């Protein structure tokens, strides 16, 4: 069966809520039924077939072509299946996803993978602020799964993160890992200011020395046994994280944020 392919016909001026177009909600629906689904676009509701050309029938594999940065909530609460986005994705990409896989060939907007529970999200370009974070007012961000960003990410990546991995090949903005409860954020590029701000537990794994706050204390250089296991788990990824030459097990360890619980850590590749 060929993948259900939704090709955007034109770029509407208003933002579009794509949350009805996830694998689980489309199961057993034929193209005509899918075409009749109404999407919120600004204050209007637009049928899918007005906005997209529909091809293919396999609703467990969805391809969104000509995507652009106003298509919000792609893969919201996805629970199994695959979504492939050709182009950019709007805000709230993969929000609360429970399982399955989302791949974006371009950039993603704000709050990508916010409150994600499980599954795999890959963004080939850049991601906006609050990647894997919690929605405003909520206390729990990402709870599991893996996010891979090949470009850069905005501010507050992993805000209130609780479990899972965020892998960033590029740079991370300010407040990376802020208010983390647990989990792992790995950044191959540079990190911004206020790294790990108010983090309680969790690991920030860095390839380059950060600009640390005074509330992080140096614990010395160590060889940590869990790192080879962590890197081994990245081997299947289509990423620089899978490259054995990028792996290391010797790190400078900083504990913090001491203004919070102080059980978090920043691990920096030892020179």
């Amino acid at each position, binding site marked *: 069966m060929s993948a259900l392919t939704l090709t955007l016909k034109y770029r509407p001026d208003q933002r579009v809520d794509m949350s009805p177009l996830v694998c689980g909600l489309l199961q057993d629906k034929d193209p005509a039924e899918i075409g009749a689904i109404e999407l919120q676009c600004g204050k209007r509701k637009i049928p899918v077939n007005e906005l997209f050309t529909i091809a293919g029938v396999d609703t467990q594999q969805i391809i969104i072509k000509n995507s652009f940065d106003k298509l919000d909530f792609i893969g919201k609460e996805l629970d199994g299946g695959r979504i492939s986005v050709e182009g950019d994705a709007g805000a709230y990409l993969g929000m609360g996803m429970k399982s399955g896989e989302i791949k974006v060939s371009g950039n993603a907007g704000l709050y990508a993978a916010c409150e994600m529970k499980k599954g795999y999200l890959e963004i080939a370009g850049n991601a906006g602020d609050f990647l894997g974070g919690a929605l405003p007012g909520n206390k729990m961000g990402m709870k599991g799964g893996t996010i891979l960003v090949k470009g850069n990410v905005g501010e507050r990546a992993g805000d209130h993160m609780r*479990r899972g991995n965020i892998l960033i090949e590029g740079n991370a903005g300010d407040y990376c890992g802020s208010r983390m409860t647990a989990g792992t954020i790995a950044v191959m590029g540079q990190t911004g200011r206020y790294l790990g701000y108010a983090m309680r537990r969790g690991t920030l794994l860095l390839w380059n020395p950060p600009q640390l706050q005074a509330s992080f204390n140096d614990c010395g250089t160590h060889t940590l*046994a*869990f790192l080879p*296991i*962590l890197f*081994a788990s990245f081997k299947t990824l289509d990423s620089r994280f899978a490259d054995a030459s990028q792996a290391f097990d010797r790190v400078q360890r900083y504990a913090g944020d001491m203004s919070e619980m102080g*059980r978090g850590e920043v691990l920096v590749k030892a020179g």
Partner: protein
Amino acid sequence: MIINGVTIDATFAEAFPMKATRAIITAQNEKWAMIAAQAMTGFATSVIACGCEAGIERTLSPEETPDGRPGVAIMIFAMGGKGLAKQLETRAGQCVLTSPTSALFAGIDGGIRIPLGKNLRYFGDGFQISKVIAGKRYWRVPVMDGEFLTEATTGQVDAVGGGNFLVLAESQPQALAACEAAIEEMRKVPNVIMPFPGGVVRSGSKVGSKYKTLNASTNDAFCPTLKGATKTDLSPEIESVMEIVIDGLTKEDIDKAMRAGIQAVCDLGSDNGIKRISAGNYGGKLGPFHFHLQEIMA
């Protein structure tokens, strides 16, 4: 049945259902992995008084271990799941957590999950760190030599304990040499352990005793010094009997190990003083697993 002059008795070994688990111990080098493994499997020859039966299954190359360091696979067998979990945790805590550079991992992925490092983490006094990697939870416990890394749980599976055979020889050195040869071959078989010292037991037991407080006592029918004093099972030329006990994950694993061991003994043959191979049983009434020697060697 006679193989190379060695008589294989028309009898069977009787074995029992047990619960088993496997753990992988790694360390900076094989020496220290082995030290931790030996400590963890110490005082675990028989469930009669040790609470479990444990042994080293084999050494593991760095490519075979989760953290890429040299390792040793150990297995623990107990009569019930509760007892097994208790023994595993106590031994891991006192023997592996304490051993320099060690790390501890699950050796069985399926089965019922029982705590491995799940509770040992509290040794970290709040400084312990959990990491879930590829669906498995690990604990990093800060210790004085660095960090003790342990997987939270390992698998418990149904297993078989008490497979055995007896080597009857003309002298004590010949019996021991035959058993050593057998153990060397049996250690190549996966999923089994021979829990007694060096894999060999010289004090095989029977059920019961004339003393009310004892539930096991010497197997007088196979004691060579009692040939004229009890209802013996030994012919006049037998001067020494030794036993090899095998615990395995399945009946087939024990079959393979018994065959390998008995074959190694028979290869030495009657020229080296080996006269008979027999086995211990309780008339077939107690254990559901029967290992008929002649069928195994057929």
